């Protein structure tokens, strides 16, 4: 299959995994990604880029997800990046997805070395929006 495409997209926050120290630790979850899980829930509830998608055209979150605080607590509507898990955080979706869950090294502007851990994703295709209409869009998860 060959599916050409290149489009602007809204980005939402996602999650990342914890890492152990090198000189310092900088995970996406600890830095901005921490927003991720926090936003992961709300993002899917309506923090999509408004410039590209009116509220009525927002996608809905997947019904399942992770519960970091245990059964009966808040659900964060996404799954960890593991083989066999669902990449998309939006439901009623049909399209292309990508996950990049990778660790590595880097440095801050003061010269300190850090580790990083990212989970970056995209979802591009057709989805049924909250207003019940089919829409096309591209979304990122940070």
């Amino acid at each position, binding site marked *: 299959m060959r599916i050409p495409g290149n489009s602007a997209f*809204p980005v939402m926050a996602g999650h990342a995994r914890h890492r152990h120290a090198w000189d310092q630790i900088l995970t996406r979850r600890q830095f901005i990604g921490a*927003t991720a899980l926090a936003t992961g829930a709300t993002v899917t509830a309506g923090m999509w880029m408004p410039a590209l998608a009116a509220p009525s055209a927002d996608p809905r979150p997947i*019904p399942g997800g992770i519960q970091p605080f245990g059964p009966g607590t808040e659900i964060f509507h996404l799954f960890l990046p593991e083989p066999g898990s669902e990449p998309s955080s939006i439901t009623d979706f049909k399209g*292309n997805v990508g*996950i990049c869950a990778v660790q590595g090294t880097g440095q801050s502007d003061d010269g300190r070395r850090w580790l990083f851990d990212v989970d*970056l994703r995209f*979802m591009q295709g057709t989805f049924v929006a909250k207003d019940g209409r089919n829409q096309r869009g591209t979304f990122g998860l*940070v």
Partner: protein
Amino acid sequence: VAFSKGTVSVDDLDNGRASMSVDDLSLRDFHNIPNALMRGSSDPGTVSYEIEWDGVLSQGEVRNEANRFNLDWVDTDVTVQWSATNEATGFSFESNVGTRQTSIELGQVPLAIVGEETNGTFFE
């Protein structure tokens, strides 16, 4: 919430080729996982990143009745570079190129896939 535009290019899923680019996306820095989960205090920040997926390491399908999704996936090589700035403190970070190998060298198990998914009402 501040937003920034990015691009996604899915060039050839059969051969695992796709890319994603985001510049100066405004997000919040929650500093650590517990604070983020509890929606604690945060600082304004920005992130930028570039990802290239390429090559086929393996491929397969997932059909999950419980969560109602199908996934045709291609496991790929990947490169990623990202940077971030905390606008309140001025702290900034820039990564070296991250790959599967850099993850493995750190004792981690990377995941890099592209694919086609259907879920929810499109699940069959």
